[in-house]
C-alpha cells in the first residue's frame, strides 16, 4: 500500500467503522464484533506504520490545502506512545461501554458508538499530525465530533453543558490558537513540527522579538484549552453530564490528552526548548498551572458528585503535565509524557469504577456510597488502586511518573513546582481517602439492590488495574520510546 494510505489508516479506519456501525446497528449479533474490530484494526494499522524502519522521522504529505501547507502525517516518539495509548484504551473502553450502555438502557446507541468512533479517528489524526495546521484541523474536528457525545442524553442539562463545551473549546481555539498559528506562519513561513523547534531553527540568526514569542506561548497554552488550564477549564466539569464511557475515554483519555499532547508538540517542535528558556512568560504560565493544580484540588475536596470530583482531579493532573513541560529540560519532557500515560490509565480506571457504581446502584453522590465495598469488591478495589496511583504510591504507575517529574524539577531547582506537587499530593490524599474509607469501612446507608455488573465491565476494569501495575513494573515500555525525543 502506498505510504499515504498507511499513514491515513488510523484516521480512516475509525471513520469507516462509524459508518459501518450506523448501517449495521440493527443486526444485534454483529454489534459486538464490529465494535471490537475497530480498535483492533486501528492498532494493527499503527503496527503497519512502524514497520517502516525510519518511521520515526518521516513525514508524509497527504495533500495541500494552502500553498505549501496541508495535511501532513508522521509519527515521532511522543505521538507514537500517544496513539498506541489511545487505541489500546479504546479497546478496553469499547468493552466497558457496551456493557455500561446495556445495563443502563441508554438510547440511540448506534449514534453513540458511531460518533465515538469518529472522535477517536480525530484523536488519531491529531496524534499523527506532523504540522501545526493538521493538528489544528483535527483538534477542531475533535471538538465538533465530541459535541454529540457530550449532549447524548438530550435533556436540558446536556444542552446547557453542550453550549459551555462548544463555546469554551471553539472560542479559545478561534481566539487564541488560530491567531497564534497564523503568527507562527507569518514569522517562519512554515508550520512543520521540526525537531529542535521550528521557531528556534528559523529564528536562530535573527534577533528574536522576545515579547512577541512570550505572548505567543501564552496564546498557545490558553488556546489549547483541551488541556484545561485555568481559567478555560470549566468545560470539563460541564462535560460530565455525558454517559460515563464518554467521560472515561474522551475526557480522561482522548480529548484532554490531545490537549496536553498538543501543548507538548507545540512547545517542543514549534518553539523548541532553546527559545523557550529565554522567555519571561514561562514563569507566568508555571504560576498559572500551579494555581490551577491547587485550586482544582481544593474544589475537588468539596465535591459530592463523584464524576465532578474526578473531573477536577483531571484538570489538576493535566496541569501537572503542563507544568512539567514548562521545566524545559529533555528529562522533564519525558517525565511529562510518562505522566500523560500514567494519568490516562489511572483516570480511566477511576471513571470506569464510578460508572460501574452508577450502573449497579444508581448512585452518583459520594455521600450515598457508604459501604459499597462489601458488595462491589472488584470495583472498589479498582477505585482504590486508581486513587493510589494518582497519589503516587509505589507499585502503581502513577508513582513512576510523579517521581520523574519531581526529579526533573529538582535538577533545575524549580522549588516552586516541588512545593506545588507536594501540596497537591496531600490534597489528593485528602479527597480520595474519605471515599475509600466510605467504601470499605462504613455500613450501607439503606437497603440497596445491587444490579450485577456484566462481565465486560468487570473485565475492563481488571485490565486497567493490571495496566497500572504492569506499567510500573515495566516502565521501559514507554520510556525507551520517548527517550528518542531530540
Amino acid at each position, binding site marked *: 500500500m502506498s505510504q499515504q494510505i498507511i499513514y491515513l489508516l488510523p484516521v480512516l479506519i475509525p471513520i469507516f467503522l462509524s459508518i459501518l456501525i450506523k448501517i449495521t446497528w440493527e443486526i444485534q449479533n454483529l454489534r459486538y464484533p464490529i465494535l471490537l474490530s475497530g480498535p483492533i484494526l486501528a492498532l494493527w494499522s499503527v503496527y503497519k506504520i512502524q514497520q517502516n524502519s525510519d518511521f520515526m522521522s518521516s513525514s508524509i504529505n497527504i*495533500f495541500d*490545502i*494552502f*500553498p505549501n501547507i496541508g495535511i501532513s502525517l508522521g509519527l515521532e516518539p511522543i505521538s507514537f506512545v500517544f496513539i498506541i495509548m489511545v487505541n489500546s484504551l479504546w479497546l478496553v473502553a469499547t468493552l466497558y461501554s457496551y456493557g455500561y450502555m446495556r445495563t443502563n438502557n441508554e438510547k440511540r446507541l448506534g449514534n453513540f458508538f458511531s460518533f465515538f468512533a469518529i472522535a477517536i479517528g480525530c484523536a488519531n489524526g491529531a496524534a499523527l499530525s506532523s504540522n501545526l495546521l493538521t493538528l*489544528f*484541523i483535527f483538534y*477542531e*474536528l475533535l471538538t*465538533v465530533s465530541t459535541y*454529540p457525545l457530550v*449532549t447524548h442524553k*438530550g435533556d436540558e442539562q*446536556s*444542552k446547557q453543558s*453542550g*453550549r459551555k463545551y*462548544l*463555546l469554551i473549546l*471553539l*472560542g479559545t481555539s*478561534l*481566539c*487564541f490558537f*488560530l*491567531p497564534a498559528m*497564523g*503568527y507562527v*506562519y*507569518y514569522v517562519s513561513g512554515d508550520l512543520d513540527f521540526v525537531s529542535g523547534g521550528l521557531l528556534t531553527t528559523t529564528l536562530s540568526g535573527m534577533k528574536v522579538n522576545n515579547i512577541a514569542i512570550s505572548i505567543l506561548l501564552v496564546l498557545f497554552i490558553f488556546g489549547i484549552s483541551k488541556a484545561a488550564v485555568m481559567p478555560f477549564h470549566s468545560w470539563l466539569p460541564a462535560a460530565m453530564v455525558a454517559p460515563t464511557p464518554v467521560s472515561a475515554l474522551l475526557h480522561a483519555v482522548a480529548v484532554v490528552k490531545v490537549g496536553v499532547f498538543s501543548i507538548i508538540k507545540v512547545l517542543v517542535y514549534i518553539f523548541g526548548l532553546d527559545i523557550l528558556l529565554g522567555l519571561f512568560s514561562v514563569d507566568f504560565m508555571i504560576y498559572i498551572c500551579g494555581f490551577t493544580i491547587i485550586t482544582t484540588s481544593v474544589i475537588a475536596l468539596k465535591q459530592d458528585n463523584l464524576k465532578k470530583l474526578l473531573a477536577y482531579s483531571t484538570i489538576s493532573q493535566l496541569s501537572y503535565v503542563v507544568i512539567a513541560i514548562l521545566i524545559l529540560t529533555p528529562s522533564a519532557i519525558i517525565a511529562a509524557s510518562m505522566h500523560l500515560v500514567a494519568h490516562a490509565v489511572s483516570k480511566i480506571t477511576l471513571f470506569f469504577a464510578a460508572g460501574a457504581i452508577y450502573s449497579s446502584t444508581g448512585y452518583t453522590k459520594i455521600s450515598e456510597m457508604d459501604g459499597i465495598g462489601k458488595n462491589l469488591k472488584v470495583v472498589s478495589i479498582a477505585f482504590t488502586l486508581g486513587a493510589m496511583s494518582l497519589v503516587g504510591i509505589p507499585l502503581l504507575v502513577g508513582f513512576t511518573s510523579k517521581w520523574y517529574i519531581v526529579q526533573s524539577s529538582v535538577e533545575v531547582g524549580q522549588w516552586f513546582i516541588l512545593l506545588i506537587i507536594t501540596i497537591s499530593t496531600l490534597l489528593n490524599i485528602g479527597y480520595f481517602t474519605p471515599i475509600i474509607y466510605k467504601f470499605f469501612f462504613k455500613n450501607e446507608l439503606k437497603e440497596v439492590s445491587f444490579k450485577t455488573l456484566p462481565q465486560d465491565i468487570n473485565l475492563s476494569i481488571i485490565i486497567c488495574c493490571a495496566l497500572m501495575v504492569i506499567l510500573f513494573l515495566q516502565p521501559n515500555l514507554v520510556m525507551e520510546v520517548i527517550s528518542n525525543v531530540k
Partner: protein
Amino acid sequence: MNEHAPALVVMLPIIGAVLIMLIRHNNLNWGIALLSGISTIYYSIILYLNARSVGTISYAMGGWEPPVGIEYRIDEFNSLLIALIATVSFLILVYAKSSLNIELKKNKISTFYSMYLLCLGGLIGILSTGDAFNAFVFLEISSLATYVIISMGNDRRGLLAAYQYLIIGTIGATLYVIGVGLIFIITGSLNLYDISVKLGDIELYRPLLASLAFITVGIALKIALFPLHAWLPNAYAFAPSVGTAFLASTATKVAIYLLIKYLYLVYGFDLVYSNQIFIFVVLSLSIIAMFGASMIAIFQSNLKKLFAYSSVAQIGYITLGIGIANYNGLIGSTVHIINHSIIKAAIFLAIGCLVFSSKIVNIDQLAGLGKRMPMVAVCITVSSLSLIGVPGTVGFISKWYLVLGSLEQGLWVVVFALAVSSILALIYVGRIIELIWFHAPVGGMVSQNKIPFEMIAVTVVMTIATIYFGIDTRLTGDLAKIAVENVLLGEQL
C-alpha cells in the same frame, strides 16, 4: 463562435429572458432557462480557459474599437467569477421548478424565470464590461430585475421590501454614476483601462477623491456594507426562496467585484491606499459589520432574516480583506467571494426545502427537524459550520487567509475581531443546531409535502461543495491566487 464568448456570456441569459416572456408555458420556460444556463456555463468556462492562456482578452462590442466603443475586458479574475455565478445560478435553476410552484402564483412563474435570467445577464455584464457607464447600465438591469424577483413572492411584505430596495438601490446606482460623471469630466473617457492610464497623468486631486468617494458609497449601498445594509434583511426574508438563494450568492458579490476593480485597476493601489482615512473607514465599517450584524442575527426569529444578517457580516469579511489590502488579505477576499456564494446558496436552498415541505418561517418551527427531515437538517448544520470557520469547511479557508493578511500588517485588532465574530456566529448557529437536534417537534405540524428529488439533490450538492472546497482548494484557492496575482497586483509584483 468562441471568439464572441464575451458577448455570448452576457447575451445568452438575456435572450433566454426575452424568449421566456414570449412563451408563457411554465415548464417549457424552465427548460429554456436551463438551456440558457448551461450554454452560459459552457461559454464562461471557455472564457476562463482563454483568459488563463492569453492573459487579458479585449473584446470590442459590435466591432467598435475602444476607447470610443464599449469594450469587454476579460481577465483571470472576472472570468473566474463569471463561471462561478453561471454555475451557481444554473444549480439554483434546477432547484427552482418545484420550489416556485409552491411559492408563487402560477401565472407569475414565467415572469420569474425571465427576471432571473435578466438579472443573471446583467450580473455577468457587470463582470465583463470594461466601460464605466456600461457597468452602470448593467447594474441597473440586474437591480431592476432583482426588485421584481423580490416582489414576486406570495408574502405581501415582499412588495414593501422591493420598494425599499428600489429606492435605496437607485440612490446607490445614481451615486455611482455621479462618480463616473466626475471621472468623465476629468479624463474625458469612459473606458476603464483608458481612464486608469489617463489618471496617471492627472494632477487634479480633489475631484478625483470626490469621485472615489461617490463610487465607493454608491457601491457600498449595493453590497449592503454596514450601515448601508437596511434593505438586505427584508429583501432576503420576503423574496421567494429561489430568489433569496440566487441573490444571496450572486448580487452582492458582483458589486464587490466592481468595487475591487475600481480600487485596483482604475484608481490604482497607490492613490487609494495612500489615503489613510479610506483604509480606516473600510476597516472600521467591516469590523462593525462583522460584529453588529452577527449580534443582530443572534436575536432574529425569522430564519431567512437571521441568515440575511449573517450575510451582512460575511460581506464585512470580504471588505475586510480589501481594507487589509495585502496579498493574503486580497486572496482572502477573493476566495471568500467564492466560498460565501457556495455557503449561502446551500443554506438558503436548504431553507427553501423547509418552506416547501412545511412552510417553515420562524426559527422555533425548526424544533425536532433532525427527526422529521434528517437530510435537510444535516445540510443546514454542515453548511452553517462554515460560517463559524470550522476547519474542513470553506469558511476556514477564507478565515485563514484573512488572519494571515491581518497579521502581516500587524493588525492584531482585526485578528481578534475575526475570532470574536466567529464566536458570535457560533452562538446563532448553535441556537439553530440545538433546536434542530435537541428539541422534540412542536405539536400541530403543518402537513408535509415530500420534497422533490431535484431540490434535495441540488441542496446536497451545494452542501458537499462547502466541505469539498474546504479540503481541495485547487479550484477556489489556487484560482483566486492567480486572479489576485495577475490582475490586481500585476503592477505591484
